[in-house]
């Protein structure tokens, strides 16, 4: 199946039907101790000779939709993109917000039964957090999901057994919400204090496409730029708020955070809140109006005096 795809992509590249393939590929990296390893990482291929680098395995955790809105790829003509079913939601949100032209996109739909957490931390060797949620909601322990809007579907599943499940974020969330507010505040203070303001979370997020991020604005400087508590607090709250009703829970922000701030805890909370309050699921339908640009007469206002 992959071979078919590769042949087709090569053809399309040579004929100029597509300008670039963004997919998963393998790369040889040198470790600190001098050894060499293969890692799966995003690859950007614009020559047909490179196409053979494409892979589809359990390590393809990244959400490649992020790259679609990056300046560098706007000029590359039609882009073929490897998309996991969950990543499709991000495409929907971007379509909703008129950021991408579906016609400029050739979606290579992957059939997926969960990918591994690639976080350089505790969850390594486990199923990624987002997959637990995804597989649970489809009601089967080893669900196989297929993107239905893809231009071409890869039906082969990646090799290997189902990795063990890691910790489920919902249980974290439940535990966390039981804590008294001072404890929660202290927890987040400690977390936000670690933030270096490297903005990796922002760069990895498919929804953070603003030409000028509010965090970079200096007149007025709403959000202090130096990494101290006040600025960090504001940055993270604003980041979470700007993702409210847009976050599709791909977990990239948390995965790339070098300081291990559990950003998905906030994001998941907001995903749940939005569903709970307004029955809204981001990325469900590219036609629906964005959450904050619609309202219902009987929206909850119990909190308003």
């Amino acid at each position: 199946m992959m071979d078919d795809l590769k042949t087709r992509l090569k053809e399309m590249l040579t004929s100029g039907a597509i300008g670039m393939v963004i997919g998963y590929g393998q790369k040889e990296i040198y470790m600190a101790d001098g050894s060499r390893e293969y890692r799966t990482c995003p690859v950007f291929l614009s020559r047909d000779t490179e196409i053979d680098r494409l892979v589809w395995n359990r390590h393809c955790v990244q959400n490649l939709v992020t790259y679609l809105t990056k300046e560098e790829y706007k000029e590359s003509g039609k882009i073929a993109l490897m998309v996991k079913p969950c990543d499709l939601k991000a495409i929907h949100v971007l379509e909703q917000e008129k950021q991408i032209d579906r016609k400029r996109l050739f979606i290579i739909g992957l059939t997926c039964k969960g990918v591994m957490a690639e976080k350089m931390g505790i969850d390594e060797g486990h199923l990624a957090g987002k997959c637990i949620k995804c597989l649970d909601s489809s009601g089967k322990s080893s669900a196989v999901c297929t993107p239905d809007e893809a231009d071409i579907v890869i039906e082969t599943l990646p090799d290997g057994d189902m990795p063990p499940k890691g910790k489920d974020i919902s249980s974290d969330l439940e535990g966390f919400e039981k804590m008294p507010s001072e404890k929660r505040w202290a927890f987040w203070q400690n977390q936000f204090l670690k933030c270096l303001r490297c903005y990796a979370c922002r760069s990895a997020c498919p929804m953070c496409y603003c030409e000028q991020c509010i965090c970079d604005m200096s007149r007025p400087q709403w959000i202090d730029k130096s990494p101290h508590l006040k600025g960090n607090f504001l940055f993270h709250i604003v980041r979470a708020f700007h993702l409210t009703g847009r976050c599709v829970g791909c977990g990239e922000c948390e995965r790339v955070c070098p300081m291990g701030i559990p950003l998905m805890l906030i994001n998941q909370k907001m995903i749940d809140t939005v569903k709970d309050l307004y029955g809204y699921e981001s990325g469900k339908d590219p036609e629906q109006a964005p959450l904050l640009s619609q309202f219902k007469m009987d929206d909850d206002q119990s909190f308003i005096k």
Partner: protein
Amino acid sequence: MKKIKDKPQESEDLLLEKDRLWQPRIVAFLCNWCSYAGADLAGTSRIKYNPQIRIIRVPCSGRVNPLFILRAFIDGADGVLVSGCHPGDCHYSTGNYFARRKFALLKRLIEFCGMDERRIHFSWVSAAEGSKWSQVVNDVVNAVYQAGPFTGFDLPVFSKETEIETPADLCKQGPERFAYSIDLMSRTGKK
């Protein structure tokens, strides 16, 4: 400023002593057409209310960006109130409906992060509700007073205790991996 905690255990005298030293600082964002006019009416009707509130006029509650509220806390407010027209009364027909969604989500978000719910308030006050305005202000001041001074951005409590109690060892990863020997003092920038 010291945190006022465990209030019931302190003697009343001590409480009063502290009360005298501290007055809550509350910012109110009022829409021009209803709530600001309602506050004007409270004035013309000479309805007295607590003076610890500073009003910033905006055209519509829909103009209130969540940033305003968050920034007010950063800049030293102990509490924030946003007030607009009742649903259906918006001068701009739908501004307050959009605002309502934003505020509902913002409130949930920052309360999730541990913000005391007594510090953030929303109300609908019409141009005819001078007495409601005074009541809202008194209630808000009262609530913020009970919550005490906002010291959330003072030096955090980075104790063993909070680390252990947080779920899923979530806060462990960072420091461990990156030899996170932090000098908290230099991070917070003061004190």
